[in-house]
């Protein structure tokens, strides 16, 4: 048996998934023991373990990053929104009691009743809504601060339309 015969033999053994082969003729003796599958399996297990560790590592990193991100975002949201959010819950809308024209001042030559940030005492007027020549002075029933004015002077407003956002004081 020359070397080429041995190569062919190994090829044959491999292709037929033979684990162990022993040949003896006279003083020729060939023993082939294939351990590649086990090796491959071990290799695979190793690679799987590595992969798992890798994934775990990634997961761990991602988790850490996400945790950090979440924490950072939460912190940001908290710092940016915490105060307005708590205020927002207590803000109050002043709405129009009917369809009409919204006026910010008692007459065109007078200054507006209120501006943004004005502090308004209880029972004080903040605007006029006019319809059918009824001049409706809308008063606040609490002391409050004007946070925003939601409509323009002279604008036609609908029933129930918010006109102001106020912060009770």
């Amino acid at each position, binding site marked *: 048996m020359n070397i080429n015969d041995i190569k062919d033999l190994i090829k044959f053994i491999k292709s037929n998934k033979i684990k162990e082969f022993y040949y003896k003729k006279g003083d020729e003796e060939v023993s082939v023991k294939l351990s590649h599958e086990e090796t491959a399996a071990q290799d695979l297990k190793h690679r799987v373990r590595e992969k798992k560790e890798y994934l775990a590592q990634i997961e761990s990193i991602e988790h850490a990053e996400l945790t950090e991100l979440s924490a950072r975002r939460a912190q940001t949201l908290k710092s940016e929104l915490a105060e307005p959010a708590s205020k927002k819950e207590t803000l109050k809308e002043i*709405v129009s*009691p*009917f*369809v*009409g*024209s919204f006026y910010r001042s*008692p*007459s*065109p*030559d*007078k200054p507006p009743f209120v501006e943004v940030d004005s502090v308004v005492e209880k*029972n004080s*007027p903040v605007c006029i809504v*006019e*319809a*059918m*020549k*009824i*001049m*409706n*002075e*809308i*008063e*606040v*029933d609490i002391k409050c601060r004007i946070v925003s004015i939601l409509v323009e002077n*002279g*604008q*036609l407003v609908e*029933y129930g339309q918010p006109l102001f956002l106020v912060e009770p004081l």
Partner: protein
Amino acid sequence: MDEIGLKDVNYIDIFEIKKNLKGAFVGKNIYYEEKVDSTNTLARELSLKGVKNGSVVISDYQERGRGRNGKIWTSPCGCNIYMSIILKPKFSPEVAQGMTILAAVSVADAIAEVASLKPQIKWPNDILIDSKKVSGILTEMSTQNMIIEHIIVGIGINVNAEEKDMEDGIKNIATSLLIESKKTNEFAGPLNRNKLITSILNKFDKYYEMFLSTGLSSVLQYYQKYFSMIGKEIEINIRDKRVKGQVVGIDSKGALLLKTGENELEKVVSGEIYF
């Protein structure tokens, strides 16, 4: 008109007015001041002090009589009517828009009855005679949380003013009951303001009861008698826009219905009208 003549025939007599009131509540309490800033301002102050629903404020002179959008209503001679009715109703602010209609038809009725003239109503509540303004009504309301605190119906009528009493700027657009009476009877004398006030308060009481029991549509039937704008081409300022159209009527809430195009109808609740 001298002061003696004015006092003799034409001073405001609260007892005389109250004696002839027929209604259930309007005018049961009357507050008279010879001279005030404006009857609406005094009425507001009295309302805040807790005067009763239906109380009335009357004055001979207003130093700061107000019209819509802060326009000045001149109150020169101690010969006209300046009064305000204080209402403290339980209905919603939206419904309160009907007070404009009530006030206009009450004044028109009283002028027709006491002065025997033919008043016309320019929407929503100017009273005209021969196309000139003889009465203006300014209704002011205070609300909190969609609840009415009070309504002040301010009524100004040029009763016995003569042309010399009027400022030059308004002579061509304003008139008085006396001026108009003299057009048909040159000997017509000053009108009795007490009778006119009594009549207005009685009419207002009647229409207010009608409004509460059957709604605005009943009152609008009386309003239509004086409403002279049907078919007229008008211009109206709505916000910053001037809209042209033909008046086709009044809806059940008193809004002006304006035909602005072939198939276009505009419902107007707010705006300044120009003929």
